[in-house]
């Protein structure tokens, strides 16, 4: 088949099973858009309102579908607008392929109109990137791009294609990539590592499992649950691991980290063996590193060799995909009776409930709390919604209180903490899991960072439920100002527009709740809506998220108030 480079791009996407991409056109990518027009029955393109939105939508799509998200943009500003989403996908290991147009190869380096060195700019935040300057390279490079993005520890890949390569002709033949000699996506499981880890686990008196997104990315939920159940070991999660094990599971003991639960954090400092599964010891999880689980031996199940000993020394590393390593470990672990150890979790939970959780979720004061809103969502959605969160207090509260019965239900920006993530990510999340209820929980600040994506929601009709928790503050920053900067609220108070009117301007049904009595019905109405829906809840302005581990403090210094 003798076709143009631009057509080859589309045929490669189709060959990779892509039927949906997000993007924004412009001069240097027009040949590809022209082909998209011809192929529109097979390959659906969603026009976001900003290229950042395209990346977050691709990320949301990847997170709920488990497939590679695709974003496409023009050169120069189109390409640079992708960077935040690419950086987010890199740090949160989200499989994504970004395709950018580039000026003609004869113009490279001439400061041509909309020329930017996107390869140079994206290098530190991509798993791999490549500039294509000849049409004939396209099939092989795109095959590699998809293979790299999805294999091993997933991540974002950027392919920059000069305009002449899009116009140029090639004899098209697509061969999926099955391996690259310099790249080993999954280390071969070493049984001796499994045996050593199992011995450490079996002799433990107070073991603790901390799981991360690796369980979800490795499709290892079943193995993970079997491991937890057979061993009887309490398990706690990082924010990106959330939903891999159902909330109601008796051994699911909650969240670790800066705003995690009391017991998981304090008992990290008491456990004798810490079993880390597919997580990377982020500083938001560990607090002060030299004091983190200093008493414990560490078992680390990890796919990425660069994570071993990066932050926390692994006494027993087990390198591999955790689907494999967990399956091997299950064979060797012996069931434990850990009654008194488990009782410690209940004791500390009771204390957290009394001081924090009850007030958050069943408030007696007048103002609405973010916690009660999340509880109302759980109820209306039977704990089975995909919850997409932005960044800030509402994010922490949502992750603390949202309930889940299935995996791939929590979509949030963890490592990068990207405000503006949620609205576009929710669009992708819904398209990646069309049969599921998708609720985007967003702060009034972050909502306004990508609010233009309401246009995408209106145009596509995608049934995203938008729940803005409005405290009229950049709440999380205000909380820090209150606690650590003597309440000097520098530039954190916001005069907000009428969000309901804005949503209505996009013809999205919208409502605002200011009183408790109206909350349940409004949430129910939002959940029941067939199409997109906007609900704003005016919450208490100066509530804080607790527990909290101040930056740089050890987990022992966790504060309940």
């Amino acid at each position, binding site marked *: 088949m003798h076709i143009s480079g631009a057509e080859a791009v589309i045929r490669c996407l189709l060959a990779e099973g892509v039927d949906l991409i997000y993007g924004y056109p412009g001069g240097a990518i027009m040949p590809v858009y022209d082909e998209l027009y011809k192929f529109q029955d097979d390959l659906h393109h969603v026009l976001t309102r900003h290229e950042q939105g395209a990346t977050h939508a691709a990320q949301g799509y990847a997170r709920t579908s488990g497939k590679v998200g695709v974003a496409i943009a023009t050169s120069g500003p189109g390409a640079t607008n992708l960077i935040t989403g690419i950086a987010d996908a890199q740090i949160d290991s989200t499989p994504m392929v970004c395709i950018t147009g580039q000026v003609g190869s004869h113009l490279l380096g001439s400061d041509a109109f909309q020329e930017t060195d996107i390869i140079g700019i994206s290098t530190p935040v991509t798993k791999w*990137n*490549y500039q294509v300057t000849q049409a004939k390279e396209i099939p092989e490079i795109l095959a590699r791009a998809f293979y790299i993005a999805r294999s091993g520890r997933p991540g974002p890949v950027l392919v920059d294609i000069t305009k002449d390569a899009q116009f140029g002709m090639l004899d098209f033949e697509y061969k999926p990539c099955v391996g*690259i*000699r*310099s*790249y080993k996506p999954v280390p071969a499981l070493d049984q001796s590592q499994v045996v050593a880890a199992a011995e450490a686990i079996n002799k433990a008196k107070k073991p603790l499992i901390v799981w991360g997104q690796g369980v979800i990315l490795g499709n290892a939920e079943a193995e993970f649950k079997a491991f937890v159940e057979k061993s009887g070991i309490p398990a706690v999660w990082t924010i990106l691991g959330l939903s891999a094990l159902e909330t109601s599971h008796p051994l699911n003991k909650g969240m670790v980290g800066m705003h995690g639960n009391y017991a998981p954090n304090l008992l990290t400092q008491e456990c004798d063996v810490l079993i880390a599964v597919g997580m990377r010891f982020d500083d938001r999880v560990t607090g002060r590193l030299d004091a983190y689980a200093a008493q414990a031996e560490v078992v680390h199940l990890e796919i990425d*060799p660069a994570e071993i000993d*990066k932050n926390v020394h692994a006494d027993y590393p087990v390198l591999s995909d955790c689907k494999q390593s967990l399956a091997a470990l299950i064979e060797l672990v012996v069931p434990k009776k850990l009654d008194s150890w488990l009782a410690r979790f209940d004791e500390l939970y009771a204390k957290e409930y009394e001081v924090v959780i009850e007030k958050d979720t069943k408030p007696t004061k007048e103002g609405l709390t973010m916690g009660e809103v999340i509880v109302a969502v759980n109820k209306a959605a039977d704990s089975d919604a995909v919850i997409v969160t932005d960044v800030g207090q509402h994010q922490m509260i949502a992750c603390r209180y949202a309930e889940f019965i299935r995996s791939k239900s929590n979509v949030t920006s963890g490592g990068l903490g990207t405000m503006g993530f949620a609205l576009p990510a929710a669009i992708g999340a819904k398209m990646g899991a069309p049969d599921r209820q998708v609720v985007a929980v967003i702060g009034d600040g972050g909502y306004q960072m990508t609010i233009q994506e309401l246009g995408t929601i209106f145009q596509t009709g995608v049934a995203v439920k938008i729940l803005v928790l409005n405290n009229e503050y950049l709440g999380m920053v205000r909380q820090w100002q209150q606690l650590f900067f003597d309440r000097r609220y520098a530039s954190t108070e916001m005069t907000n527009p009428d969000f309901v009117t804005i949503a209505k301007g996009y013809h999205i049904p919208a409502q605002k709740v200011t009183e408790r009595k109206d909350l349940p019905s409004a949430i129910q109405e939002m959940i029941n809506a067939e199409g997109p829906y906007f609900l704003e809840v005016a919450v208490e302005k100066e509530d804080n998220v607790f527990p909290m581990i101040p930056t740089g403090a050890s987990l022992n210094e966790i504060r309940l108030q």
Partner: protein
Amino acid sequence: MTTTYTISIYSENNVGLLNRISAIFLKRHINIESLATSPSEITDVFRFVIVVNVTEPQVQKLVQQIEKQVDVIKAYYHTDEETIFQETALYKVKTNFLFEERQIQNFIKQSHANIVTVSPEFFVIEKTGFRHETEQLREQLAPFGLLQFVRSGRLSVSKAPMGISKILNSFTENNQ
């Protein structure tokens, strides 16, 4: 405690890779002392030799991050004792000194340097050796007005085998 480590990288020959590798140092605010790139003993496999002054945990993490890059086949780090290493320096001096200053000829002889070229205006001396050796010659020649001086990055081979062919062969076997 920081030490001098030599990082050896075997990689594909890809335009963007140098940038990708230097970004790993930049991100950690670590200065590269010297860098040399060349083909390796294996056809189509490229080699980087990078010298850094860091702690062992730092160099371990650097190598882990380097090896993680898709186009990197393998990376190692070694201490000076574990490698054979040399640097090459070139010294450009005015030609009349060569004949007028006997000392210069002595310096060249004593340091086992070579004269690469002699033209009516200048001559060029080459010296390969350890840093202190090329440095000593530089100091000796400096009073005569060095027209130019340049020193290469460190070139280094490890005493222990690297085993790259084995890695590449095992890939070919698994993918046939």
